[in-house]
């Protein structure tokens, strides 16, 4: 006998929506827009964080840089490596040559790539380390006539033939990167032979990296600054998200919009007290009335929220969506190639649910529970 109760209540909820189609459409549009605003901000911050984590997961356990009174300075490779190798727990040490240089297009990051460098190219091929006089450039760098001019200060510019381009999806890490032969890189950056920008250290147990850092500092004869991978990750995502913190301000009007929608919904449902009173007078129980209001709200809210989520996802991840990189990094055309792991996506869904769906459904269905405390005739007399 009770078999069709929920189905019938569901059908009646759909009928209630059709009784006031314009209300449902307006509410749906509001919810979709609010969800899209919130989802965009939340997805962006999660994606930046996840992408930064992904990039830095392949970075060295520790990076050792030498400092002096003027800031960073180059580090003698042989002496530095032999000191570091004396510390128990160190697996490998390798010198890195990198730094900022000036081009016609503005500052770039120059990296010297040794023979062990290899990267998958967009077309499925491989990008090999450039030969002397050649360069592999990041997605944000334009080559003019297949050449890139890098300034050497008073000595004038030096030209490099662009031999390859890094794939677009590396933009988050390699947007303004110029990869050169190590000797070219050292020349461009003014690093003397036998010196490096820093030393990258791998340890046996990554978890011990923080403990090893002070021991490495003690083993070296110069003042050094040692950065662990966790610190680098924190610095990177922190810097990116600071630039994007303006976007988080979009959450404020969105939250206010949810509050307004909740208040309007509560008032609108209170006006429906007469219908609640009538249903109860005709033998409906509080649970029946609650279910109708819940289903009615869910039928409007769930598709709207899904639509808003899809719009937010598209704005952040749609191929060619370049506004996040304009906002976060100041890039003009390049999409950032963001990545979101499944846990991050679930977190965004949960946050959207907590911030929008649950308050709206509670506001829509709550008054029916409150009305259940009143006598049906009082509701019939007070409602419209």
């Amino acid at each position, binding site marked *: 006998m009770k078999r069709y*109760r929920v189905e019938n209540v569901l059908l009646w909820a759909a009928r209630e929506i059709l009784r006031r189609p314009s209300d449902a459409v307006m509410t749906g549009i509001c919810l979709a827009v609010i969800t899209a605003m919130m989802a965009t901000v939340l997805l962006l911050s999660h994606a930046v964080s996840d992408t930064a984590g992904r990039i830095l997961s392949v970075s060295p356990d520790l990076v050792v840089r030498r400092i002096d009174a003027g800031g960073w300075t180059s580090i003698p490779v042989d002496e530095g490596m032999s000191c570091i190798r004396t510390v128990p727990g160190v697996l490998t040490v390798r010198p890195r040559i990198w730094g900022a240089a000036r081009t016609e297009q503005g500052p770039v990051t120059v990296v010297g790539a040794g023979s062990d460098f290899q990267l998958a190219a967009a077309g499925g091929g491989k990008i090999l380390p450039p030969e002397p006089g050649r360069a592999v450039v990041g997605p944000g760098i334009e080559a003019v006539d297949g050449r890139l001019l890098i300034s050497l200060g008073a000595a004038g510019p030096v030209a490099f033939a662009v031999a390859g381009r890094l794939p677009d999806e590396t933009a988050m890490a390699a947007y303004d990167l110029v990869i050169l032969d190590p000797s070219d890189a050292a020349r461009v950056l003014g690093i003397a032979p036998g010196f490096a920008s820093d030393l990258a250290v791998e340890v046996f147990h990554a978890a011990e990296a923080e403990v090893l850092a002070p021991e490495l500092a003690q083993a070296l004869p110069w003042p050094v600054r040692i950065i662990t991978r966790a610190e680098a990750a924190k610095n990177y995502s922190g810097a990116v998200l600071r630039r994007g913190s303006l976007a988080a301000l979009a959450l404020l009007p969105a939250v206010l919009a949810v509050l307004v929608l909740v208040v309007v919904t509560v008032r609108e449902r209170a006006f429906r007290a007469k219908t609640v009173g009538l249903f109860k*007078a005709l033998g*409906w129980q509080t649970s*029946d009335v609650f279910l109708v209001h819940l289903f009615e709200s869910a039928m409007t809210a769930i598709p709207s929220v899904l639509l808003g989520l899809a719009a937010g996802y598209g704005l952040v991840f749609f191929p060619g969506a370049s506004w996040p990189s304009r906002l976060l990094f100041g890039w003009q055309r390049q999409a950032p190639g963001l990545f979101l792991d499944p846990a991050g996506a679930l977190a965004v869904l949960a946050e959207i649910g907590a911030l929008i769906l649950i308050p709206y459904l509670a506001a829509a269905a709550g008054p029916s529970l409150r009305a259940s405390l009143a006598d049906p005739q009082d509701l019939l007399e007070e409602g419209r």
Partner: protein
Amino acid sequence: MENEICCRQVSMVRNTVSGGRRQILKHICARFPAGSISEVNGPNGAGKSTLLYVMAGLLRPTEGEVLWNEAPVSRWSAGHRDRWRRQVGIVFQDLHLLEDVTALENVMVPLIPRGLSVGELRRKAFSAMERIGAADLASLPVARMSGGQRQRIAIARSVVNTPALLLADEPAAHQDRQGKDLLRVLFSDLKQQGVTIVVAGGREPALYNDGRTDFSFEMENGELKGPS
């Protein structure tokens, strides 16, 4: 006794629009036996509608109690009264129809949470409308109907759930002669099935002016006199 409803010292005090309090029902004592038709007549404002709403469990009396088969319905919690009301049919004086849905859907409303299939819902609702001669109105929106037609829809809605108790507030107010005849036939059929019927009328009996009710009460200034 099955399907018997009694009022025992029922009083009702309600707030007035001007902020005062007015006693609408004064120590009502009455018994409405199972399978009987009772009529409560009296002038406007005498308290007839309030008495029906108290008997239907829509309002709690300020004093006294309403007994359904000796059970104190008026003392029950709201949830229990909601469940009990499933065996009560009510025709409101204001009708309280849903204006923007069809007549058939209005009649189906009491059955929706009962767990019947949609086909069965439609069949029962259509059957109730046929009993009051309103089957041809099934697909029309209520907003487009005349007062008499709307009242027939409200009556069909009150009997669609095969009630044990039917409380009708001026059910013949907008009915022509044919409508009143149909209503009398319907009430007679229900009485044969053991339904207890209480009808509120105006100053003069509108439905049973030939004295064919089982019990007739007079109500004035919240006091009930009778039966006669």
